[in-house]
């Protein structure tokens, strides 16, 4: 508990960390901007074009903002301990070591758990309001029908933030951990998509970005990702993405000299 309060203060007391959290919330503004652009384009199109017009779900588009900013926050919260040299002081005052990482995980996880739903649901409400009945009523479906997807999208934010923390704990270097994080989110899915047939579908299903749609069972716009996992398996895999790197980081933290 005392360690938790310390780790919260560590994040709260540094402006660049507060900025990363603010940027994550900025995803709602991006959603508003995109929704307004889409609505204007729709209005200036002919009725025939309007009938055929489609729109990607903006919650999913906007999601990369909180994902990346909190993922990078997760990385930096751990790697800055090493770049500043503070790690030695931090481990001297918490010699069992794992409580420090657990404290960071709790704080980063909670920040993600607040930010993720705020951005996803905030964007959803904004889109309902701005898009209205345009795009064949994309944003007029019953809220309850959309709820599973919105919840699943929200949960990827804390998961990604924890993934960043775990990568930071394992690699101890911000450059390496951020590169791996971005690679995992954007580069590897594109490579996997080019794999021969059964492989691309199977690997495409276990990619991080493929999980929210498989968790919710809302597979309307599959994109580059596969869709072969049942919801409970996809949910379990998302938890693995979040938890396993942190556990590996904790194990290494206890073993390695500081």
């Amino acid at each position, binding site marked *: 508990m005392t360690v938790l*309060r310390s780790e919260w203060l560590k994040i709260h007391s540094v402006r660049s960390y507060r900025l990363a959290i603010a940027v994550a919330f900025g995803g709602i503004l991006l959603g508003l901007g995109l929704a307004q652009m889409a609505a204007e384009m729709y209005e200036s199109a002919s009725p025939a074009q309007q009938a055929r017009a489609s729109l990607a779900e903006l919650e999913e588009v906007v999601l990369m903002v909180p994902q990346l900013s909190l993922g990078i926050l997760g990385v930096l919260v751990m790697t800055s301990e090493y770049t500043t040299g*503070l790690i030695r002081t931090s481990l001297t005052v918490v*010699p069992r070591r794992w409580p420090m990482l657990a404290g960071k995980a709790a704080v980063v996880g909670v920040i993600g758990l607040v930010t993720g739903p705020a951005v996803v649901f905030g964007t959803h409400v904004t889109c309902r309001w701005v898009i209205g009945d345009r795009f064949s009523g994309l944003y007029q479906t019953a809220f309850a029908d959309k709820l599973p997807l919105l919840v699943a999208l929200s949960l990827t934010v804390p998961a990604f933030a924890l993934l960043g923390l775990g990568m930071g704990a394992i690699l101890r270097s911000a450059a390496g951990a951020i590169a791996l994080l971005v690679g995992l989110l954007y580069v590897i899915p594109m490579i996997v998509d080019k794999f021969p047939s059964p492989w691309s579908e199977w690997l495409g299903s276990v990619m991080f970005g493929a999980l929210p749609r498989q968790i919710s069972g809302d597979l309307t716009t599959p994109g580059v990702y596969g869709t072969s996992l049942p919801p409970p398996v996809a949910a379990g895999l998302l938890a693995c993405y979040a938890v396993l790197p942190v556990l590996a980081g904790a194990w290494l933290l206890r073993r390695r000299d500081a």
Partner: protein
Amino acid sequence: MVRCGEATPCRTLNRVIELKYLTKRYGATLAVDDLSFTVRPGRVTGFLGPNGAGKSTTMRLILGLAAPTSGEVLVNGRRYASFPRPMREVGALLDANAVHVGRSAYNHLLCLARTNGIGPRRVTAVLHHVGLSDVARKNVGGFSLGMKQRLGIAAALLGDPGVLIFDEPVNGLDPDGIRWIRDLMRSLAAQGRTILLSSHLMSEMALTADSIVMLGRGKLVAEATIEELTARYPSLEDAYLALTASSVQYGAGGPGR
């Protein structure tokens, strides 16, 4: 163990650091080589040795930051990692530059204090004690080396510990700062605390320390009081140069000088 308030120094029965056959190997180098000595309370123990002799490594081993290859080190009779509230037992300054430049001095100390259940009042008190009250809310990125040394000492004092470890705290300090550290070390020792202090400044160490532990290439070269050394040699510096002559690794003229 006796627990007491923040104002009075703790009266623990066994404020000692005991090294027993301590060895730390990094690849081919033996940073600490079969080292045994005891640091006792009520005096300042100077920790001397050429660059790379293993002083900082020994301190990291004492604090459980590095795991010994063999042997063990006990603080107050226990392994450091076994203390639930280590700041109340041991305070350490290893590297004054190890701070987050974007955090204020007050918040830096409060982050450390909270892990050991120490409150903000104590943080304010130690900031006052080291003379940083006026800059408590300023980011440490703007601090001079001397101010960072003071901040590091404040961190070490937070838990009012009976054992204190300082790695080159006078490095880069002006004469005022050096004098301040000397007086602080002497008063902490006079309160009955155990002080382990490393430095390369021999004349300063001669004024500050009561006894000396000297290392060369990870091995114990000498363990004596200042009086014993200055009785046998013209000065502490002469004692140091004579005793470490065979173990200087990075001196002018190269190894094996």
